[in-house]
């Protein structure tokens, strides 16, 4: 547990009574700064308070989670971990979202995410470091939910330690104050010594005067009562009974509404508004504002604002992106792959075997840009109260958003109050960072700018069209592959080159035993805003690699599962999940009597191994996915029911992308606009998904994203058996 050694648990009396424990990440945080060469100032910035646990005098326990709720339900998992480690009963524990203040920042958690993905700073992180606006100094200001990190890092590596230390402190308090014996232990919210019992609440005041022990033991598996159980999610009753307030539901007295038209060309400012008089005379319109990249109309009802925006006649300034199209981007990427490439991974010496004998197999893949399409479109409210600016929004890192809003408003961070709301979906859209130089929180900038000018409270809501057309997209990627088969039809070498810096991530490395591997990528600044999209680079690279290995199997006329297994060590995690999924689905290689075929894919991401089989048919030349079987191997599973829900959701998210998802670039903007041309899978098309969770004593893997990567290649590989191998997504184009 190297990470925990760099953590320090501290505690003391809580305001209002009780015992508070925090965790400080020391080295974890510095390591990131050092790697990225960011200057640190002063010692106070070297420490990071990660999270808090409060044991209250009424014998309840409050867990202040730094993670915002976007549908993943991780908060419930965090309470399960704490309840076990602190030995609580389920009714005792309460979950609260930590306020957006620096005491709760979890940059160290973010580092876990970054560190795992890359090991060295990737180009996109360098962007952050070099981008004056998003200086990595802001890492201190991150309060990040992403990278499937909530359970893995915050929960397993951090909170568990704090809870275990707290439990020991309570025992020590009983020993210290009441002379309890050395055999003193705990029992569901009580410290117990023979016949004597003290509730935690009775002991906290004394515990708060003691030092945090450095000798405490983590609970053994047999002592766990909540980890591994399908505990009901804390957040669901409020969602079902309408007590959850999304930011779009925020209301403030005197509120006015803003709608937005973007210039239509990425990066280009709005040049002119040609019908200003017409717009200002529309019913309810209070103002029209050219804010550079967008025009806002403010009105006394959101629909009136949106009607006015629809009636706007605006032009964009001519811009280098004005002629950009998907075709020109693809051409550029193809040319780039012929130019200078960066090395990502290499095994053996590929040059020594190039030009050998045997069949050479080549392939070219393309995946398009994709919008996140969260169900709740981007929106934020802002208002002034005294000398404070209030901002309400749903974001994956509230503290960062708060700092960001303060910069836009040109105010001290202390004068900005941030209200973090539950989100109608996140999927990476609501983090503060992009992989390009673009600002994903533009809607917050807009509302802050408007409120500073108009002074009255404003809620700004992007239409679905604005949301689709001003995203930070999953990057479009072209990838080229080649391999040569030896006399046993196994690859003598494996060579790939893809466009985009994510090609340098571990996801682009094939897991197979090939003696000579060379993985490269080309990268240039992206003219299209690109960002983190559920499962990030895994979603493209699993499609490429797992399609290509399947093409090789096809050339070898081999069963695709057997072919993969022959290229994996017997004890390899990929092999384990492949064998399990073959059993689960009763694997059939070939076309069934009723015209269906199965396809397979495997990918490890976010600490979780996933093997997927999809059963597919072709109806009117369109792919129809009937059933999906998934086996995951992810160490300790904290909440199996939530895990399954996340995997199912990930499969449908990935399937929507595989079958339909495309954002085409035309004249420098995105052509698609709403669900009619950017369709989302509906119930009738949703396959039956069967998930099997394998467990081990290893640290928990993530679940929020891991269902996504394998579904596209599994479907593509099934279609190949039906005679239609997709080399480009979406499949049902």
């Amino acid at each position, binding site marked *: 547990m190297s990470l925990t050694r760099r953590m320090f648990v501290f505690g003391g009396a809580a305001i209002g009574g009780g015992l508070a424990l925090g965790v400080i990440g020391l080295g974890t945080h510095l390591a990131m700064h050092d790697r990225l060469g960011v200057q640190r100032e002063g010692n106070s910035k070297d420490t990071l308070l990660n999270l808090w646990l409060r044991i209250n005098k009424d014998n309840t326990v409050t867990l202040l989670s730094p993670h915002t709720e976007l*549908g*993943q*339900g991780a908060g419930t998992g965090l309470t399960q971990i704490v309840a076990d480690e602190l030995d609580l009963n389920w009714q005792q524990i309460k979950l609260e979202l930590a306020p957006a203040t620096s005491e709760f920042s979890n940059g160290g958690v973010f580092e876990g995410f970054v560190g795992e993905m890359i090991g060295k700073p990737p180009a996109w992180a360098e962007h952050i470091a070099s981008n004056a606006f998003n200086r990595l100094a802001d890492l201190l200001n991150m309060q990040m939910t992403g990278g499937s990190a909530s359970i893995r890092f915050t929960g397993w590596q951090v909170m568990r330690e704090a809870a275990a230390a707290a439990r020991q402190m309570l025992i020590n308090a009983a020993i210290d104050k009441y002379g309890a014996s050395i055999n003193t232990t705990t029992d569901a919210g009580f410290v117990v010594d023979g016949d004597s019992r003290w509730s935690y609440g009775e002991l906290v005041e004394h515990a708060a005067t003691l030092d945090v022990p450095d000798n405490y033991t983590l609970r053994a598996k047999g002592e766990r009562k909540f980890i591994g159980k*399908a505990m*009901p*999610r804390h*957040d*669901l*009753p409020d*969602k*079902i*009974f*309408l007590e*959850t*307030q*999304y930011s*779009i*539901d925020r*209301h403030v007295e005197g509120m006015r*509404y803003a709608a937005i038209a973007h210039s239509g060309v990425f990066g280009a400012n709005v040049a002119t508004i040609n019908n200003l008089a017409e717009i200002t005379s529309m*019913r309810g319109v209070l103002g029209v504002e050219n804010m550079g990249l967008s025009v806002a109309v403010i009105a006394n*009802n*959101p*629909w*009136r604002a*949106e009607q006015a925006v629809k009636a706007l006649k605006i032009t964009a300034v001519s811009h280098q992106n004005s002629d950009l199209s998907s075709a020109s981007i693809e051409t550029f990427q193809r040319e780039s792959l012929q130019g200078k490439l960066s090395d990502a991974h290499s095994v053996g010496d590929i040059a020594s075997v190039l030009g050998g004998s045997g069949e050479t197999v080549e392939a070219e893949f393309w995946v398009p840009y994709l919008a996140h*399409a*969260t*169900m*709740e*479109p981007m929106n934020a409210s802002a208002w002034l109260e005294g000398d404070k600016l209030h901002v309400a929004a749903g974001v994956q890192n509230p503290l960062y958003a708060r700092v960001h809003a303060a910069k836009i408003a040109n105010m001290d961070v202390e004068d900005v109050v941030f209200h973090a709301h*539950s*989100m*109608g*979906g*996140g*999927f990476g859209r609501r983090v503060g960072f992009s992989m390009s130089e673009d600002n994903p929180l533009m809607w917050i900038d807009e509302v802050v700018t408007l409120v500073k000018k108009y002074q009255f409270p404003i809620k700004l*809501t992007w*239409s*679905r069209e604005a949301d689709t057309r001003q995203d930070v997209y999953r990057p479009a990627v072209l990838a080229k592959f080649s391999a040569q088969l030896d006399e046993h039809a196994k690859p003598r070498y494996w060579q790939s080159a893809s466009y985009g810096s994510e090609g340098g991530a571990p996801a682009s490395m094939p897991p197979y035993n090939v003696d000579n591997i060379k993985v490269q990528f080309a990268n240039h600044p992206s003219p299209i805003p690109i960002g983190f999209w559920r499962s990030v680079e895994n979603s493209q690279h699993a499609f490429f690699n797992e399609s290509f290995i399947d093409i090789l199997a096809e050339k070898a006329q081999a069963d695709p599962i057997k072919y993969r297994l022959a290229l994996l060590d017997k004890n390899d995690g990929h092999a384990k999940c492949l064998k399990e999924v073959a059993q689960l689905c009763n694997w059939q290689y070939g076309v069934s009597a009723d015209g269906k075929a199965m396809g397979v894919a495997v990918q490890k991401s976010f600490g979780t191994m996933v093997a997927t089989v999809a059963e597919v048919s072709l109806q009117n030349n369109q792919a129809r996915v009937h059933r999906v079987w998934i086996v995951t191997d992810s160490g300790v599973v904290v909440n199996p*029911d*939530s895990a399954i*829900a*996340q995997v*199912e*959701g*990930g499969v*449908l*998210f990935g399937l929507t992308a595989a079958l339909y998802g495309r954002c085409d670039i035309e004249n420098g903007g995105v052509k698609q606009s*709403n*669900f*009619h041309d950017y369709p*989302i*899978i*509906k*119930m*009738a098309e*949703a396959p*039956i*998904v069967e998930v099997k969770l394998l467990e081990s004593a290893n640290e928990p893997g993530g679940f929020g994203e891991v269902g996504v990567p394998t579904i596209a290649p599994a479907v593509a590989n099934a279609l190949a058996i039906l005679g239609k191998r997709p080399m480009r997504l979406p499949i049902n184009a």
Partner: protein
Amino acid sequence: MISINLNGREQLFDVEDDMPLLWLIREEAGLRGTKFGCGIAQCGACTVHIDNQAVRSCMYPAVAAHGKQVNTVETLGSKEAPHALQAAWIKHQVPQCGYCQSGMMMAAAALLKSTPNPSSDDIDTAMTNICRCGTYSRVKAAILDVAKEMSL
């Protein structure tokens, strides 16, 4: 003036005839359980009941609701007295982000009113709401559960 029986109360609204019912409900009446997702009747987040039929309120002009009975998701039930669907939604742990779920439950309630014992295909046909989080299998299981209970 548009007169609507909204959740059992006659109310007058001074809005344009073509203002979609959704925005009247959310901003003029201040009932924010009904959600906005697309504005073009594609996603169902804005589903309400008009004279007991499920209607996507984002494309339904306010004037068309004149003299009608409109019920929003706020009428479904409460923590103390949950609607059968809400109880089933808890039991099956349906929501993820939850944003689509008021529309889902309203569509399901209308379905069960017209088809108390729906088949899986009936549910597929009636439930065309979008859930970006992908909760469909649990939505369906919950509806089937309620139907089974009702038929007992």
